[in-house]
């Protein structure tokens, strides 16, 4: 059942990521088009609960989603399987989470 859980977690996180990424891409597009400067962006995100939630959730979902995906790739293309891989991927997820949250904290 482990696989079923990982599958569910990855699909749920993907469903969460999809709108967030769309939103993010939209903002970036808008920003680039409108010639927004970095400080303008930062000004908007700074102290914003909304953007904090958006990027926080993004980081959280990505930290669940990416390691599971990477685990599949490593298993299939690099023949790396078993407990070692699982531990490595869990660590990868934690690192992603930590770095991501730090970045979010920084722009807030």
């Amino acid at each position, binding site marked *: 059942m482990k696989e079923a859980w990982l599958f569910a977690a990855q699909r749920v996180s993907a469903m969460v990521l999809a709108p967030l990424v769309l939103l993010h891409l939209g903002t970036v597009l808008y920003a680039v*088009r409108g010639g927004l400067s970095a400080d303008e962006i930062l000004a908007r995100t700074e102290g914003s609960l909304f953007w904090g939630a958006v990027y926080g959730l993004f980081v959280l979902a990505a930290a669940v989603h990416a390691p599971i995906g990477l685990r599949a790739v490593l298993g299939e293309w690099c023949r790396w399987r078993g407990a070692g891989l699982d531990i490595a991927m869990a660590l990868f997820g934690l690192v992603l989470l930590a*770095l991501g949250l730090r970045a979010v904290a920084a722009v807030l």
Partner: protein
Amino acid sequence: MRRGPWWAFLLHRLSGVALAVFLPVHFLVLGLAVERAALDRVLDWTDNPWVKLAEAGLVVLLALHLTGGLRVLLLEFGRWSDRQQSRIAVAGGLALLAGFGFLAAAFA
């Protein structure tokens, strides 16, 4: 002798792996950059063409991976019917178009 869907898979996988590699770096650099200095330093940082390219690449990767991810989600959670196949193709096409839109915009 691969058919369309397989290439979609490959693109999705490669973009996923690339994201998994670059996203932590992105988080790291972003966090570091913001933490370390004032806003004008950040401005300088985003003016660096290399950084610009990397950021644009990330946007492209996200767009591609999003497209592929939506294909998979549609395939797995959409209701299957004979017409489903073509709907998936259409959805994929639209998403790809959007992806290229971002791409063009990012470099504009």
